[in-house]
């Protein structure tokens, strides 16, 4: 059974359809690259996968031990976080909160946060304030927080936004290594065609009225690659 299976998923707000008829499967260890232009409904699909909105039609099923709540999510940056006074450790540990009643973090939570910070090489800045970090470091912190929330699947929504090219490629390399070396399943959402790294095993292309799902090779030889379909 796959981790996530979408069959004919159509999503939108109110009566407006944002994404139509998505068919895809994500299996353990996959690296899925979701690509589409701005406004094509990628973020709506992300909300659907996280269960923040329900599909207008079709089904999203979770399997292989994954639940909707077990997804490690790296959201787009918000205005609130720009000047937020929080230490790196506080932000990373907050990935351990769950819906149950636990007033304080447990020792296991703290150990998990520590392991995530070690893995992403930010343990030496754990006492620094989040707002004083560079964009690349901030994304590492949020990635560590997402790792606290999951051991199975990372969902990254436009993680390279606002990063300089060097920091962006460093981030992609880190995510690739988490997928390759740690066996974490990755779903990467981006509008940046150039970010389609060799790590990606599968691609989901979201066009204005058509979606395409296949392996990276199939996508590159398909008419959707680099927007050829529209020309």
């Amino acid at each position, binding site marked *: 059974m796959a981790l996530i299976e979408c069959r004919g998923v159509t999503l939108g707000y109110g009566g407006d359809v944002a994404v139509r008829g998505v068919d895809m499967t994500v299996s353990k260890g996959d690296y899925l690259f979701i690509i589409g232009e701005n406004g094509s409904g990628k973020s709506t699909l992300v909300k659907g996968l*996280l*269960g*923040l909105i329900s599909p207008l039609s079709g089904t999203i099923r979770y399997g292989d031990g994954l639940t909707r*709540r077990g*997804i490690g*999510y790296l*959201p787009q940056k*918000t*205005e*609130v*976080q720009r*000047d*937020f*006074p*929080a*230490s790196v450790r*506080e*932000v990373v*540990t*907050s*990935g*351990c*909160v*769950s*819906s149950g009643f*636990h*007033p*304080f*973090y447990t020792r296991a939570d703290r150990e998990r946060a520590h392991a995530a910070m070690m893995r992403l090489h930010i343990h030496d800045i754990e006492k*620094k*304030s989040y707002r*004083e970090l560079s964009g690349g470091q901030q994304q590492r912190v949020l990635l560590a*927080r997402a790792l606290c*929330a999951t051991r199975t699947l990372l969902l990254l929504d436009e993680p390279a936004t606002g990063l300089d090219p060097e920091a962006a490629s460093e981030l992609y390399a880190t995510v690739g290594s988490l997928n390759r070396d740690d066996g974490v399943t990755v779903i990467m959402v981006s509008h940046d065609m150039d970010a389609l790294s060799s790590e990606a095993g599968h691609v989901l292309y979201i066009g204005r009225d058509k979606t395409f799902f296949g392996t990276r090779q199939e996508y590159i030889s398909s008419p959707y690659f680099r927007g050829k379909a529209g020309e």
Partner: protein
Amino acid sequence: MKMIFELLSDPVISRIIVRALIVGAAVSLSASVLGVTMVLRRMSMIGDGLAHAGFGALAAATLCGAGDLKTEVSIPIVMATALLLMWLSESGALGGDAAVAVISTGMMTAGVLIFSFTTGYTADMCSSLFGSASILTITDRDLWLSLLLAAAVAAFFLLFYAKIFSVTFDDVFSFASGINVWAYKLAVAALVAVTVVVGMKMIGSLMISALVVFPALTAMRLCRSFAGVLAVSGTVSVLGFLVGFAVSCVLSLPVGASVVAVDLVIFAVVCAISALRTAHKKRLARNAAV
């Protein structure tokens, strides 16, 4: 000065002063701790709107003949307003901050009209707007209400600290982790509503939101961690109240304005220091580069 000490040795007067000090400290502490999440979540204007709504609610309670119970009657009205404001600003109906402006001025207007139809422009109305000129009006019931409020705020933050941090820092991530984000936002707004009503009598509805905003802003400039900001915001707020209260007694000024003035001075000083520090760091960096 000598007269003040003579007054303080009077058991009746010292009892009144102690009562006022406890009410003020409890309200300052609650407002400043809640203020941290309000300011960080860009909800300062909701706090301000609630403060204005408190005036209207108090007038409505007076109209209903609530008499001595008007504080207790006002609380559910302001809480309902909090709910409405949260819903309007989140749903984007009326365009966020415009909704806050509409409701806060609407409730103020209702308050003024109700007062002028019933009791007229009395001392009662003045003290709801600008805070009490005399602390004699603070009753034992105000004392218990404020202690209950401070206990509720403390319990909320101690029991749900991890979740409050998560929701404040990133509500979408928290939602995806299965936290009931709405429940936390509503709990904060409801507690602010109670703080506003309880504190209005002493500080005044036009100034009570300063207690929500200033200590939090001061603490954000001093601290790098969320836990630190909460602690410093609470401490600065209670200290600011004590100093402001003393100033108001010595110079016979209204309590509310004195406390807010002290908070404002602390904030300005901290801003100046952090600006100087940044400039100094920049200069050091430039010198190092050369």
